[in-house]
């Protein structure tokens, strides 16, 4: 009998197990998750959770009954540390907790771990990261403390901005410190960055761009063995921003230790093909840990690692089918969302490699869309409080359609009516 070992028990791992069963796999499925929690959703941790709107049960992915009914064994709170395989691809995994798990098929959904700040002072009490449930369980109550009035957020990406927005909504004095010249700079173009800068400032968040951090400041602990508390952050120009609480959100790093140990190709993540197959031709990988060929016909070539729920789910479905010997390839339009205060950002497609943007609507109204083009073809869009336009664009991209740039800016015509087919140019 086949036994599939899934290392990692978050969105990708759970979806992979679900799809195996949906496709009729009757073999054993064992899933090992490092965290001592049932599989849960990550996105709410930086949104509703911080505002105190959610309980642990609100974020779980599947009920216990679901695992039981599908005969999926979930091992939570243990970590696979070594994997030995024979020439057939079968092998045995050993865990930190001393478990020995034989398998015939292997899936890596190991995710990503939070990027740590390598500066003095990060171990002061009141300094938080925000990646997993334990982080959120610690940060939520800390943020709710009336004594934590001054909050400094380090990092102007999605996590930092979502945390800053939540803290502002709780009435805190919030300062966000970003090292580069603009917000969410890795993902969006200047018009969207500029909008978020203005919108957060309107909502009372102080934002410092291009700021280099020197250290995190705190008071030393009085008693031996006790950590001191954070008092602020110091920038490299000597400026000090006082803080009762610091949230660090500077990105994540793919978890590739096991892939390296297995001798798989690793290049900014576990390298997989469009079928989610790793370089050994039998291990599959999916989710934040995997880099795959850019799925986007009109975008740049090369490989991409996509951090999103949608990507984790779609790759997991493909990986499950691949494990069962079916012919499956990733063919979704990647999409992302971020809720910050009352601002809903929905991004369709991958904008990397764009050569022009069109702004549709007036950003000052807090409802607008930025469309990204490459060689006059639509490749992606950022939609702010424009869910209908987001859905229309996502569907158009999936159908290989585009919209002429000059028509895209005309808000008197509904976007849905302006799409035209855009066959992919085939290189001769």
């Amino acid at each position, binding site marked *: 009998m086949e036994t599939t070992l899934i290392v990692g028990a978050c969105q990708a791992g759970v979806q992979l197990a679900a799809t195996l069963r949906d496709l009729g796999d009757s073999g054993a499925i064992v899933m090992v998750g490092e965290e001592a929690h049932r599989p849960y959703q990550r996105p709410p941790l930086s*949104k509703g959770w911080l505002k105190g709107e959610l309980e642990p049960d609100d974020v779980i992915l*599947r009920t216990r009954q*679901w695992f039981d009914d599908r005969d999926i064994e979930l091992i939570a709170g243990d970590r696979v540390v070594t994997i030995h395989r024979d020439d057939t691809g079968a092998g045995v995994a050993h865990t930190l907790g001393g478990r020995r798990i034989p398998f015939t098929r292997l899936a890596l959904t190991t995710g990503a771990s939070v990027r740590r700040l390598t500066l003095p002072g990060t171990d002061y009490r009141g300094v938080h990261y925000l990646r997993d449930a334990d982080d959120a369980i610690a940060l939520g109550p800390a943020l709710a403390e009336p004594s934590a009035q001054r909050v400094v957020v380090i990092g102007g990406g999605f996590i930092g901005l979502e945390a800053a927005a939540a803290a502002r909504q709780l009435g805190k004095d919030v300062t966000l410190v970003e090292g580069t010249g603009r917000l969410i700079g890795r993902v969006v173009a200047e018009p969207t960055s500029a909008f978020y800068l203005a919108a957060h400032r309107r909502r009372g968040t102080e934002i410092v761009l291009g700021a280099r951090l020197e250290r995190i400041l705190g008071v030393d602990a009085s008693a031996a063995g006790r950590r001191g508390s954070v008092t602020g952050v110091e920038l490299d120009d000597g400026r000090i921003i006082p803080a009762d609480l610091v949230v660090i959100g500077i990105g994540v790093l793919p978890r590739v230790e096991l892939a390296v140990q297995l001798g798989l190709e690793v290049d900014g993540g576990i390298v997989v093909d469009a079928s989610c197959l790793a370089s050994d031709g039998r291990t599959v990988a999916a989710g934040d840990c995997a880099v795959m060929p850019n799925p986007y016909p009109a975008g740049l070539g090369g490989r991409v690692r996509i951090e999103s*729920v949608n990507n984790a*789910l779609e790759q997991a479905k493909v990986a499950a089918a691949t494990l069962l010997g079916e012919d499956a390839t990733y063919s979704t339009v990647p999409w992302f969302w971020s809720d910050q205060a009352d601002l809903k950002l929905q991004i369709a497609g991958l904008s990397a490699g764009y050569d022009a943007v069109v702004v549709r609507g007036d950003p000052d109204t807090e409802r607008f869309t930025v469309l990204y083009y490459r060689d006059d073809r639509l490749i992606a869009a950022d939609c702010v409080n424009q869910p209908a336009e987001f859905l*229309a664009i996502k569907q158009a991209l999936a159908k290989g359609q585009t919209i002429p740039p000059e028509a895209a800016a005309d808000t008197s015509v509904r976007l849905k009516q302006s799409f035209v087919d855009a066959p992919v140019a085939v290189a001769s």
Partner: protein
Amino acid sequence: MSTVVYTADDGTTTTIEGRPGDSVMETAVRNGVPGIVGECGGSLSCATCHVFVAPETVDLVGGPGDLEDEMLDGTAVERRENSRLSCQIKLQDGCEYHVTTPSEQL
């Protein structure tokens, strides 16, 4: 508790006992009911939890909010008079809900 009866496009029904406060979408996804995806986890971002509300349940759940109404224009299967995004339907204690799921969500 609350009860939700999901009828798939092919007529098969699944009945789930739900937790009051959870949404019709969450109840479906956590229990593996086919026909509802709920990719965004219920944050009104993906429109993949579209349902048609049965006549006996319409009064109980009412109509969509503004943002939801806009998103219903972009669902995979064309919206109808009784369309809702099921992530926005929160279960009330002691109530029974009947919904039909469309043939596709993506």
